[in-house]
Structure formats: structure tokens, C-alpha cells
């Protein structure tokens, strides 16, 4: 993977360069906003890692400009600015992800891979795994410990929604909105579907957080 890193801090830039090299990526490190546009249009990068506080300009402004010029590379913002407004602004200007400094390196790498994959429209992202449950979104197949499980369309949508965001509790409202055919507002409907889903795939997959919602653990 070829990464364009725009970061003015020497210590962080140097360290990230080492990380990318150790991971087998190629990284180009720029420290000035002025150098970016020419470079980004000349070389075939896979992703841009962008810091917001730059000595000769604002990262947000740069991103806006690049997007306006038609640059379609996935962009991951790394910034110390952590307020909600800052993050929303980043996304609004066309960032694909936003990571707040300081961050864990594995998280950076995972997110970087994810945005690159998304930008390529990769097929493999449609395979989901949580514990011994596997879900193939394209073929609409679900297996538990290798055994195929047959689910209704709604149950499959529910499980997919939960597995896509494994390790995160999804509230009833979120689940109803994303997985139920047309939110009929009957919250018992959700319980019925979850009950049926549990009966089919067995215990220990879907956890209830009472009064809040449901979650699937990635490594149950």
C-alpha cells in the first residue's frame, strides 16, 4: 500500500514512517500544505493520512481543495482536535475516517486498511465473523461452528447489522431502523425476531443489554 502522509510534527512523522515501513507499506511524508497538490496528482497513492495543524495552512482547507480538484483517495484524518464539531467538520469535508491523537497503532492500521478496502469496493468485506458464527453477506449464508443455519430475510438483516458492528451495543431504535422491513414502531416485533434468531443460531451469540439494546461479541 502506498500512503501519502501529511504531518508536520517531526517525532510523529518519523515514528509513523517507521510503522508504515515495518508493515511493508510505502509512505511519502510531506510536511507542508503547499507540497501536497502536485504530489498527490502525480503519484498513485492508496490512501492519505492527514494531520490538521500544519505550519502553512489548515488540513481541513487542504482536504476541501483536494476534493474540489477531484481527488478520490480515501483520507484518514489524525488530529489532536477531538470535539464533536471538529470531527463532524472533517467528515463533512470528505474525510473517510477520523482518529484522535494519541491513538493505538493497530487501530490506525485497521482503519487505514478499512478505508482503502472500502474505496476499492473489495469483495472480502462481505464476510463477517463473530466467535464461531460466520456470515456471508453476498450469498446470504450463515453458519454456526460450520453448520449452516437458515434464517428469514429480517433475521438475516438483524444478524448482519449486529455482526457488522460487533462489540458495539445497538439500541432498539438503531436496529429497528436498519434491519426491520419498515419501522412499524411495534417494539415487540424486534423482540420476536431476536427470539427467533436466537432459537436458530443458538445461545451465546446475541447478548441483551436490558433497556438499551443488543450486541454480538466479536470473540465470544
Amino acid at each position, binding site marked *: 500500500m502506498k500512503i501519502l502522509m501529511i504531518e508536520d*510534527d517531526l*517525532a*510523529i512523522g518519523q*515514528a*509513523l514512517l*517507521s*510503522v508504515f515501513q*515495518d508493515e511493508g507499506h510505502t509512505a511519502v511524508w510531506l510536511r507542508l500544505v503547499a507540497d501536497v497538490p502536485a504530489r498527490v496528482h502525480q503519484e498513485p497513492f492508496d490512501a492519505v493520512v492527514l494531520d490538521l495543524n500544519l505550519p502553512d495552512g489548515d488540513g481541513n482547507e487542504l482536504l476541501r481543495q483536494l476534493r474540489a480538484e477531484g481527488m478520490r483517495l480515501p483520507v484518514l484524518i*489524525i488530529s*489532536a*482536535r*477531538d*470535539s*464533536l464539531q471538529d470531527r463532524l467538520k472533517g467528515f463533512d469535508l470528505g474525510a473517510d475516517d477520523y482518529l*484522535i*491523537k*494519541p*491513538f*493505538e*497503532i493497530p487501530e490506525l492500521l485497521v482503519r487505514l486498511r478499512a478505508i482503502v478496502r472500502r474505496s476499492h469496493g473489495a469483495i472480502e468485506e462481505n464476510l463477517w465473523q463473530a466467535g464461531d458464527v460466520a456470515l456471508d453477506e453476498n450469498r446470504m449464508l450463515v453458519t454456526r461452528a460450520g453448520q449452516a443455519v437458515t434464517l428469514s430475510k429480517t433475521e438475516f438483516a438483524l444478524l448482519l447489522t449486529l455482526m457488522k458492528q460487533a*462489540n*458495539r*451495543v*445497538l*439500541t432498539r*431504535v*438503531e436496529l429497528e431502523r436498519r434491519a426491520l422491513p419498515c419501522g412499524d414502531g411495534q417494539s415487540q416485533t424486534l423482540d420476536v425476531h431476536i427470539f427467533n434468531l436466537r432459537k436458530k443460531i443458538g445461545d451465546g451469540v446475541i*447478548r441483551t*443489554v*436490558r*433497556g*438499551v*439494546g443488543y*450486541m454480538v*461479541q466479536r470473540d465470544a
Partner: protein
Amino acid sequence: MRKAFRQPSLFRRLILSFSGVLLAFALAGLVWAFYEAKATQRTRTNSENKAHALNIIKHLGDIVDRPERMLPVLDSIEANRQQMFHELDYHSHVRLRVWHHGRLVYNSMPALPESLPQEATRDAYAWVRTVARDDGKGLVVERQHEVDDEWMLTVWGVSFLLSTTITSLPLLLIPAWLIVGIGLRPLRSIASAIAQRSDADLTPLPDSTYRELSPLVDAINGLMQRLSRRIEHEHEFLTDAAHELKTPLAAIQINAHVLLSRCGADVAERCAEPAAGLRLGVARATHTVHQLLALERTRAEPQVDQACPPTDVAEFVRDRLAAAAHLAVQRNIDIEFHADADGALPLHLESMAAAVDNLISNAIKYSQQDGRITVRLTRLDGGCRLSVCDQGPGIEPMLREKVFERFYRVPGQEQSGSGLGLAIAERGAARNGGTIALSDGEGGKGLMATIEFAGAGAAA
């Protein structure tokens, strides 16, 4: 009490100066009355002397040829006068002397010295002297009347003259008391408006409609403006400082990762402990930086807070729980949320999230494996109450106030933390019109943190 009396009082100053001015005017009146009365008395006595003397000259004119009849006439005139003085209860003396062709023929008070004082002395009154003469007949009549024109300087005289002022003073003071009280009322209302403010409220006071008070209000508002600007600067400084710390922390973290990932397996094993220590240290510093920023964000900003739209509290808490629950699930801690209230409150989302998140993360942190956390949202009269209850070790009742202090940590605990969590929760609750309290958990076990939102801030 004594201190209150010693302290200068505007009220007392006004009342005392009112009385003082009143008294000064009374004294000036007294002096004026004294001189006026003295002059009037002299003029009148002089006229009286003159009339009497002319009368006597007229009487004596007819009998001037027979000097032997002059004495009985003068005696009877003098007797009549004394009779009149007696009836009128006059005690003053009159000396009448008559000369005929230069010879003294009559002296009503021969015991007195030749010359009598014109002005009063310590032990003698003044005398007013008038002389009438008829040169044709060789008659000279001198009448001298003793006048007590200094009676006003005696205690009795002064008190007589001042009596009206003194008796009317209480009658004047009672209205003055009321008027001064009414006059000072706007000042008192400004003072109580300032006294009732919370220490976070530095918005300007409303302009005073009184010309005399508006400079004071303007000065206070100016001070508040300078103060809030200064606090704003401090706030920016703290935020900037916390942000500045993030970059070096990030550098440490990334370098630690590179360092550890480049170590061979044998080194990695020996370095496992310091590596874990390094990671933990960075994580703690990062956490503290984030908590500092969260604490700053919960700081009330009245201008912003007034414009917060109403938010469904139950849905809001549910979202916060959903975001945090995976931490609990990892340690098999059960989280339950019971919402009996579905009201909406005008919430400042960032500070409210900081408050709720800190209570939830505390509950998770101090829960044992397989524990249970119960979050309840109950309706209160007009407002609502949010409680987060865990089954952890709890906090001694005597420390339940202290733990809200910044950087205070309960002694002897193993959990790491910044010591800011509850301070953030308290401020976040306060910013949204809530009050926070700690108590025993359900069944006397663990800890219950409760935020109560009063009815006043509730929009149902």
C-alpha cells in the same frame, strides 16, 4: 451586632446628616433670634423710656414754678409705675432722675452708682438710658430701664427657643427613616441580584434605571466582562496545554509500538513487563488529557446553554450506554437500563455526555467480574432523576463529598484513574441544571450516583 454597628452604614450616614443639618439650621435660627430679640427689646425700651420721660416733662412743666410740688408728683408717678410693674409681675428696675436748672431734684434709686452699665455683665443687667429735656423751663429727665436681654443664653432660654425643633425632630426622623429606606431600596435590589448569582454567571447585570446607580452597575459589568475574558483566557490556556500534550504522547505511543514490534521474540519476552508499563503509562496520561479537556468542556457557557434544544433524556442515556456497554460485556458485567420517564430536557449534549459517560465508566471500572449495573431514569415532579448503581466496593459516606474534588482519589484503590471523573460529572450535571449526589447502592451494596434535574429546567 457590635461589628454591624461599627461598620459604616449609608443609611446611618443619611439619617445622621439629615439630623445634623436640621440641628445646624435650628442653631442658626437661635442665634438670629437672639440678636433680633435683643435689638427689638432695646428699641422698645428706648421708646418706652422716651414716652415716659416726655410725659414727666409735660407734668412738671406746669408746676415748674413751685418746686415743692414737684417731688410729690414724681413720687406718685413712680408709685403708679411700680404698681403697674407689680401687677404685671415685672421684676426689672427703673431709675428716674430729674434735674432743674442743673440741680438734681429727683432720684428714684439713690443707692445706685452715678453711671450704669450699657451692656450686661456677669452679675448685672444692662440699662437702657433715655434723656428728655425742656430747655425753656430748665428741665432734664433721665429714665434708665434695666433690661434682661440675655435670658436667651440661659439654659431655660435656649431650651425654650429650641423646644419646637427638638419636639418636632422625632416627627421628622420617622418620615426621613422611611424615605431613606425607600430611596436605598434599588441599591439593595442590585446587591441581592449580585448575591443570588452562581459563581459561573458573569453575564452583565441589567442596566439600572436610576441615574445614580448606573455608574455602579456599569463598573460592576465592566469588571464582570474583564473577569470573564480572563477566565476565557485561562480556559483557552488549559485547553491548549492539554492539546499540546497530545502530540508528544502520540509520538511516545507510536515509538513504543515500533520499538516493541522490532524486538525479537526473546527480547519481547524479557521486555513484556516494561512494555506493558509503558503502554499503561501512555494510556493513563492520554486518559488524563482527555479528562482535562472533558472537564473544560463541561464548564458552563450561559450564552450557549440558553440555546440548547430539548433532547429525549431516555434516548440520550440509552445511546451513551450502548457506546459504553461493550466494556462491561467484556468483563461479563450486566447492564440494565430502566426508563420510566420519557421527558425531554434542554441538554448541552457534550457536557451531558461527559457526565453520563463518567458515571457509567466508573460503575464499570469498579464492578467486579459478573457484576451488575442498574441505570434508572425516573420521573420527578417536573424533572427527572438519573441513577447509576453498581455492586462495587462503594465509597465511604465520609468521602462522598471529597471525591468530587479535582484530582482526589480514594486512598488504597487499585484502579487507575485521573481523579477527574466525578468532578466532570458534577460540572456536566450542573451545566444542565442538575445536581449530583452519591449514596449506597441498591440493597446497601455498592455505590449509587444520582443526578437530579429540577423541574424548573424541564420542558416536558
